[in-house]
């Protein structure tokens, strides 16, 4: 009776010293769970939209703040049109003599009428409704409340009915609302990240339970936790990457559509809400971050579960 040609004895070196075998040969190319790539895709799409929205709001607020921080508006409230023009010119003369002022522009009455027409209709141009003279003032730097008060004082002598509004002041509630929306976007991203981690945690546990028999056999044949974990992580990487790419595509599509809608508004304020190169880089990092989060969660889940096996 012949015996088989037995192979050489394996090295006595520990398995950790040997190059790990190809993962695909240890476990089947198992799927974590049928829905997990789609769940990741949805969550990544939501993060992309939330991140793009948050970044756009930040840009909007910064642009508006930069535009308005250096501007004040002077109103000359006078029902008599002739006197109003006269006082408007006087206010312009006073303002032009001030060091803090870079430029002064008396807004033409026709422009004001066009601005008010959507609200007042033909009354805006009829002369029946008194419209104050409006002066846009650009400052050389951001003015303190005391400096705004000094402008008012300087104007009071020549134009008693003049009123000075720092544009940044009346937009402060808008800034606060924008800041709140940014925090909301950040909070949403954190919650979605938590939901992603929870989904991957559940899927990893299910997958491990599904392949418990195979994992036990591999352990008993001398396989290490590292070899088993690598196999599972290969699956997680494949499915998370698929979900992330899909989710990013959906998210970017939604962002593009929303961008088109806002661009169609052609409103001055929304023009500052565009996304720059750095913003797009941040958005591009979202799927990468999602995949890394999924890998880290799966690795931790599998390592903890394997530790409970002999």
């Amino acid at each position, binding site marked *: *009776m*012949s*015996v*088989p*040609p*037995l*192979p*050489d*004895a*394996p*090295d006595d070196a*520990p*398995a950790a*010293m*040997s*190059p*790990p*075998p*190809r993962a695909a*040969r*240890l*476990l*089947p190319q*198992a799927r974590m769970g049928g829905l997990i790539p789609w769940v990741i895709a949805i969550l990544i799409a939501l993060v992309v939209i939330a991140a793009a929205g948050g970044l756009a709001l930040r840009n909007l607020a910064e642009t508006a703040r930069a535009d308005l921080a250096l501007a004040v508006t002077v109103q000359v409230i006078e029902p008599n049109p002739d006197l109003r023009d006269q006082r408007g010119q006087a206010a312009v003369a006073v303002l032009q003599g001030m060091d803090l002022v870079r430029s002064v522009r008396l807004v033409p009455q026709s422009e004001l009428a066009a601005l008010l027409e959507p609200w007042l209709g033909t009354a805006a141009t009829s002369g029946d409704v008194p419209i104050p003279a409006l002066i846009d003032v650009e400052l050389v730097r951001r003015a303190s409340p005391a400096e705004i008060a000094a402008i008012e004082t300087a104007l009071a002598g020549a134009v008693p009915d003049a009123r000075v509004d720092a544009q940044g002041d009346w937009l402060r509630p808008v800034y606060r609302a924008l800041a709140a929306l940014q925090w909301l976007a950040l909070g949403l991203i954190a919650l979605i990240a938590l939901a992603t981690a929870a989904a991957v945690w559940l899927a990893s546990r299910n997958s491990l339970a599904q392949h418990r*028999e*195979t994992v*036990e*056999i*591999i*352990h*008993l*044949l*001398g*396989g*290490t*936790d590292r*070899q088993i974990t690598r196999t599972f992580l290969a699956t997680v990487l494949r499915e998370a990457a698929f979900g992330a790419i899909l989710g990013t595509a959906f998210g970017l599509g939604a962002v593009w559509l929303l961008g088109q809608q806002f661009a169609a508004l052609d409103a001055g304020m929304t023009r500052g809400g565009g996304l720059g190169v750095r913003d797009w880089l941040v958005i591009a990092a979202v799927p990468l971050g999602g995949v890394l989060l999924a890998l880290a969660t799966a690795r931790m889940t599998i390592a903890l579960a394997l*530790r409970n096996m*002999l």
Partner: protein
Amino acid sequence: MNDRSTEIVKFDNVGLRYGTDPEVLSNLSFTFFPGSFYFLTGASGAGKTSLLKLLYLAQRPSRGAIRMFGQDLMTMPRERLPDLRQRLGVVFQNFRLVPHLTAFDNVALPLRLAGAPEARVVKAVSDMLEWVGLAHRGQAIPATLSGGEQQRVAIARAVIARPRMLIADEPTGNVDPDMALKLLRLFEALNNRVGTTVVVATHDVHLLKKVPDSLIMRLNKGELSDPTGALRYPPRPAAGPERAL
């Protein structure tokens, strides 16, 4: 071949219970020596499989002490178990083939887990499948193999890496007498030529006759019967090992 100067496995007053149930193994004290051939016998429920689980490191004992390859299993961290397991070859009672892998890949597993070069894996596995008569079934998955074929794959997987100790639970239960004898000769070859310590659990008393120099352990209700003292070192001078029937 037998080197009785160093033990390969040493059980000292070992007991095993599952949960809060009564002990299935009690007061086991014995020693295995390199290059020996042991048959483990006993009625169903005597505790053979539980003892084998302790031997192939699927279970830790509830009490007592076990040393294997000179290392204390009771204090050994689990990270070091793979190193010990790679020195073992196991034929499980229900084969435990990886269902998603082909017969070839199942047999290749121990070598690949140990990091063997792929060229060596392919050669060794092909030769082994040829020898167990399954060369033509290398790409079949276990579900498509008969019970006997699965058993031969399981045995091929157990011996492919030339283990220092081979543990087999009813290894000839599903094969015809010719194949049973052939497999037993393989175990003997490993034992005699490579120095592998072989432990075979079996009900088949006829099998015991086939290996004349084997030592027999009898388990009865979880306790070891070793009237000859053959399993202790040094053996009792007046009594030789209980020989095969």
